[in-house]
């Protein structure tokens, strides 16, 4: 879990970082189950793994994927000025 967190912070590719946060949530829900909290484990599995990941991925689709933005689309700059 800690390795996934460090990878999520250090990775240059934001898509991989988002997948790593999904892995953190999955392991965290297993830990909640071990700590005798099945309600919280169910919530974390549904929200952290599915919904948060998909919202991050949609945001990446609408913006840029890499941290140094070398795949930036140029025509966006002039809109909405």
């Amino acid at each position, binding site marked *: 879990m800690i390795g996934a967190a460090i990878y*999520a912070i250090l990775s240059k590719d934001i898509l991989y970082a988002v997948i790593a*946060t999904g892995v953190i949530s999955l392991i965290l829900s297993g830990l909640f189950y071990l*700590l005798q*909290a099945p309600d*919280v484990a169910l*919530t*974390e599995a549904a*929200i952290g793994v599915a919904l948060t990941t998909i919202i*991050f991925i949609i*945001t990446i689709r609408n913006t840029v994927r890499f941290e140094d933005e070398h795949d930036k689309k140029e025509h966006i700059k002039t809109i909405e000025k």
Partner: protein
Amino acid sequence: MDNSLQYLEIGFYGSAIILILVGLYGALMKKSLIKIVIGLSIIDAGLHLLMISIGYIKNGTAPIFSGEDFVVAGNMVDPVVQALVLTAIVIGFGVTAVALSLVIRLYRHHGTLKIDEIKNLKW
């Protein structure tokens, strides 16, 4: 306190605190706005783990009455922190969604996500 419990304490509290610190580092040091939001959600995860592990009792059972032990309540883990974390997770999703929609809006306005190119967002 016996030995295995001490190892468990170091494991759970330590990993929760390391998660909080890693997320805080990302939120403070990174340039990209999406990376900052990822750091904030990692801080959220660490806090949830910390609170749930405070409420744990050794050899406890989940706070659900079932089967034979309908009335035995002495050995259940703390249900108060569980209810607290349950609401905190759902609220955290709402906060993340609003933050990401602000990110999309900023990108559409400025054409970049680096905070040192967007004015008035540096520290």
